[in-house]
């Protein structure tokens, strides 16, 4: 049974959440792809924590982003929703590796990226754009934004994780 590395968690918080604010309106490709890489903090949050704590972390992270983007409640609601079932989902992906608390790209492997990180980011972006435009019509209009933003966010989340997390040493 590994323990939660608070050092790693702090690095995640700085790299994903703090760094998002100055880059919020600058990481935009061709006016369609937005990068919400703060989501990486929620995606790689340690497994097996108290569910109430998990919901609070999701809510506060979302609220923090809302504070800077004039969208009160938007990111907070979606992040809380994501955090509700995140552990169940992750547990199903990592079925054969019991007792892992810290999550990083080396533990998830390609399978985890396809089955957990990518769908989670897509769901998050779908809900953000849907609530923001306030109609199903808007959702169809912005589907190019949703899909390109998903890819852009995924790439930036994985890149930041490659920089922060260490490759496990096999004994």
């Amino acid at each position, binding site marked *: 049974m590994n323990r939660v590395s608070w050092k790693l968690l702090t690095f995640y918080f700085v790299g994903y959440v703090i760094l998002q604010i100055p880059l919020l309106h600058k990481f935009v490709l061709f006016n369609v792809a937005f990068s919400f890489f703060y989501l990486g903090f929620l995606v790689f949050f340690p497994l097996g924590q108290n569910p109430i704590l998990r919901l609070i972390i999701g809510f506060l992270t979302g609220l923090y982003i*809302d504070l*800077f983007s004039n969208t*009160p*409640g938007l990111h*907070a609601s979606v992040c809380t929703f994501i955090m509700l079932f995140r552990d169940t989902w992750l547990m199903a992906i990592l079925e054969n590796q019991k007792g892992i608390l810290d999550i990083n790209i080396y533990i998830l492997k390609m399978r985890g990226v396809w089955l957990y990180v990518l769908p989670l980011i897509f769901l998050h972006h779908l809900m953000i754009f849907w609530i*923001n*435009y306030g109609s199903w019509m808007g959702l169809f209009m912005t589907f190019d934004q949703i899909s390109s933003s998903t890819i852009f966010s995924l790439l930036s989340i994985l890149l930041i994780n490659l920089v922060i997390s260490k490759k496990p040493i096999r004994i």
Partner: protein
Amino acid sequence: MQQLFAFLFRSRVLGFFLFLELISFWLIFSYNNLYNSYLFNTSNIFAGSVLETNHNIDQYFQLDEINEKLLAENALLREELAKKNLGMMGYDTIKGNAHVIPARVINNEFRKPENYLTLDKGSLSQIEPGMAVISREGAVGIIKSVSSHFSTVASILNRKLMTSSQLNKTNTLCTVQWNLESPLVADVKYIPRHINIGIGDTVSTSGYNAVFPAEIMLGTIVSYQLPDESPFYVAKIKLSSDLSSIDAVYVIRNPLKGELDSLQTVL
């Protein structure tokens, strides 16, 4: 009773989740009103000061560009001064009964359906919600909420904002509203079909709603159609102020706004 407590304890996570979602959606819906101000936006002191630091770092790398803009603005001011000396100055309404408060934009968005700017001046500089914000090129938006040092502006790139305006050629009253298409283009609505309009005609604010002074430039018509059954033209303007690169703005304080508003509500 004990079973009830046991049930509540078992579903505490779901209950807490629903509680947090309720808060979020309450925030979403209460912010939807254009003039209501709440804690969680960029005009509060925490977000404002972080954004200001951020803006200062950005500005350091854009000093050349800003210098050029200032030179251009200086040139324009000299020109206006010269005009004034000759007694030919326009903008009579501004000169007559309004005050102008200069401010800098420290946060800018223009890619969302509802866009807001953050300014570095607040209630200490006598800025209040509902005041007009203009730039050198034309109208920018309306002050939405104010803290002591910062304020947020609902820009004209906000689908909820309908600006009372007029076609300068014929003084026809119309309405300008953004269509989410591009930060440079907006729709002009309610121009009746008996009016002759052409590409290049200018549209400016009408001054009827007491927010914007009259004759602040909004843009020039770039395309128009006249559908067969429609009583109005379907027209688009190119906005005169490019809100994607805006730095210096002026907040217009109209001391007569309260008087005008209360008189109009009596009617």
